[in-house]
Structures are given as structure tokens and as C-alpha cells.
């Protein structure tokens, strides 16, 4: 009985040593080999995803193909210009980041893709993005092209209107019926997508935090670690 108990004790002790040893070795290994990137907000993909072909245009009507995402970092955000609260808040932050990048000579472009082409005319989009920073690029296209580009990132959006007291939900890619009028809601992704200078989607950051105070700083410091 006592011998058995002592033996169990020894076995337990040995196992514990083994476990602790393995754990610390693993930590040491991770610290030495991986040098893990500590990012506050930015979530990196396990593997970069090369961009598909892009069928969007700038507010001045120029084609903005995949090649425009080469040789610089890009931050991509989906929204609409009639958005009174969320989009202005986001674009203001992205404008600040663009300013910081310019000051430090980091090649960065900020791209705002309108998911509301019926209401966001080229002129309106141009005026809107320029308000936040003269270099923010506004992109638009037809509904299927926008939906394709958004789907690549997993950026969800939809639009809904009240027609005859019934909620009419228009999925991404579909045209807004004229009977919906000019007052409808757009629900859209809160993520900012990061594209590397090889034109690959590498990660994203959610801007949906209610505590917005330091998100510009923390995003900028994260971007600096991956740039």
C-alpha cells in the first residue's frame, strides 16, 4: 500500500517535470525561432491571398486594376457616402494614418470602395473622400464588380429599404430598385483590409470598437511592424 502510494507519487512528479520541461522548451523555442509579431489590432491571415482581377474605377473614371495595388501598402475600406456616423469616423482615422505615412515616407494608399453606386456618383464620391484627405482614392463600379471585390475579402454588406411598410433587403451585388427611393440603409463591414506591396491581401483590422480613442495610434504601430 505505502510502496504503491510512494510509487504513484514519483510517477506523478516525473510527469509533472516532463510537462513543465516541455512547456518551457516550447516557449523558448517560440521566442527564439518565431519571434512572434505582437500586434494589437491587426489580424494576419495564415497565408497571403493574391488579389483577383479588379473591375473598379476611380472617381475620375480611370480603371483601377490589380496592378495599382503593387509597390505600396494599401488599406481598403468599404462604405457609402450617405453614412453619417461610421464611415466619417473611419475615414477620418484612415486620413490620419495616411498623413503619418506621408510624413515618414512610407508608401501607403488608402482606398475607399463605395458599395452604394446608385447614390454615390463619381462627383459625389470624389468630393467625399477628398474631405478626409486629398490622397484617399475613392473607387466605384457596377454592383456585381463591387460584390466580387468585397467577397474576396469576406467584407459583408447589404442594403435595406422600407417599401410599403415592408423591409426590402437587397443583397450585395444586386441593383437597388428605383421604388426604394433615395432613403435606404446600408449595412457594411467594419473591417479595414491590408494589402502588401506584392498585391496580396495579408490581414485586416476591425474598427468596430466603441472605444475609439487610441485606435489610430495602435493601428499605425501595428502597420509599422509589418511594413
Amino acid at each position: 500500500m505505502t510502496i504503491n502510494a510512494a510509487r504513484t507519487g514519483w510517477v506523478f512528479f516525473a510527469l509533472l517535470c516532463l510537462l513543465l520541461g516541455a512547456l518551457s522548451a516550447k516557449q523558448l523555442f517560440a521566442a527564439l525561432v518565431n519571434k512572434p509579431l505582437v500586434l494589437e489590432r491587426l489580424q494576419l491571415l495564415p497565408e497571403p491571398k493574391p488579389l483577383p482581377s479588379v473591375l473598379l474605377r476611380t472617381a475620375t473614371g480611370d480603371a483601377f486594376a490589380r496592378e495599382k495595388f503593387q509597390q505600396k501598402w494599401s488599406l481598403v475600406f468599404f462604405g457609402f457616402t450617405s453614412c453619417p456616423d461610421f464611415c466619417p469616423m473611419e475615414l477620418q482615422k484612415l486620413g490620419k494614418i495616411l498623413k503619418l505615412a506621408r510624413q515618414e515616407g512610407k508608401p501607403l494608399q488608402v482606398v475607399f470602395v463605395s458599395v452604394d453606386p446608385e447614390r454615390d456618383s463619381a462627383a459625389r464620391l470624389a468630393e467625399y473622400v477628398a474631405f478626409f484627405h486629398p490622397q484617399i482614392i475613392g473607387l466605384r463600379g457596377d454592383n456585381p464588380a463591387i460584390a466580387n471585390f468585397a467577397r474576396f475579402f469576406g467584407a459583408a454588406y447589404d442594403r435595406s429599404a422600407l417599401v410599403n411598410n415592408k423591409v426590402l433587403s437587397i443583397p450585395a451585388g444586386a441593383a437597388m430598385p428605383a421604388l426604394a427611393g433615395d432613403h435606404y440603409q446600408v449595412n457594411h463591414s467594419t473591417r479595414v483590409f491590408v494589402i502588401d506591396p506584392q498585391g496580396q491581401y495579408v490581414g485586416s483590422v476591425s474598427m468596430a470598437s466603441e472605444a475609439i480613442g487610441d485606435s489610430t495610434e495602435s493601428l499605425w504601430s501595428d502597420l509599422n511592424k509589418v511594413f
Partner: protein
Amino acid sequence: MSTGTFKCWCASIFGIFALLYCASVFAELRIENAWVKLAPPGARANAAYVQLYNSSDAPVVIQSLSATCCAELMLHRTRYVNDKAIMEHLDQLIVPANGKITLAPGGMHIMLLGARKPLQQGEQIELELHFASGQQQTIHLPVKADDD
């Protein structure tokens, strides 16, 4: 105690309670950090933000809002569902007893629609809060590009 003195006492006690009651009904909200966000050119709406403090012992219910600058005012909240921002309509705002509520970018906001002329930076907007009690309170909000 004569009937006259008694009546007098009753009247003054009633008076005191009536005064106290009125004081609580007329209790105004303390307003802090009120501002209207300057909208980009061509925008259809402006968002307004404010912190409302209620120092009374009863909740204050804001039933509606109005302003001479704009055709329509709405209470909204930006909500986040599965990484999507969704704008939700609020029927009323309740400022809890001895509490506060905060309307701030990315959360609850007052939406100003149909401005008679575009709101300019530096302008003061006068806005009326209509309480469920029937009372009203006027608040002033400067138009600013950023919250600072």
C-alpha cells in the same frame, strides 16, 4: 390645535411637497461635450453627439427632438453584428435616474436630416429635447470637424 392652524399646516406641507415635486419635474439634464460633426460636402445628414447627465431621482425620457436648422431629427445607434455596422433606429432615449448616457461617434447619435443649408464649421446649432413629461430643454451644439 384649532382647525385654522391645522388647515394652514396642511397647506404649507402640501406646498412644500408640490415645490419638491415641481423641482424634480423641471430638473434639467446637464449637458456636456455637445457637438455636431461637420459633414463632407454633399452629405445628406449630420450626426450630433452629447453626454446627458440626470441628477434627479427619476429617469428622464427623451421622446423626440427638433431643431430649426433641419427638417428631421432621428435617434440612431450604430450596432455591430458579425463585423457589420448596422444603423438602428431608437424610439426614445432614457437617461437613468442619477445616471448619464453618452452619444459618441460609432455608437448612439442624433441624426440631423434635411438641413435648410449645409451646416458650417463654427456654427451653433440650437436643438430642442422633448421629454415624455411634456417638458422641453434647449441645448446648443457647435459644428466641429473633430471631437476635441
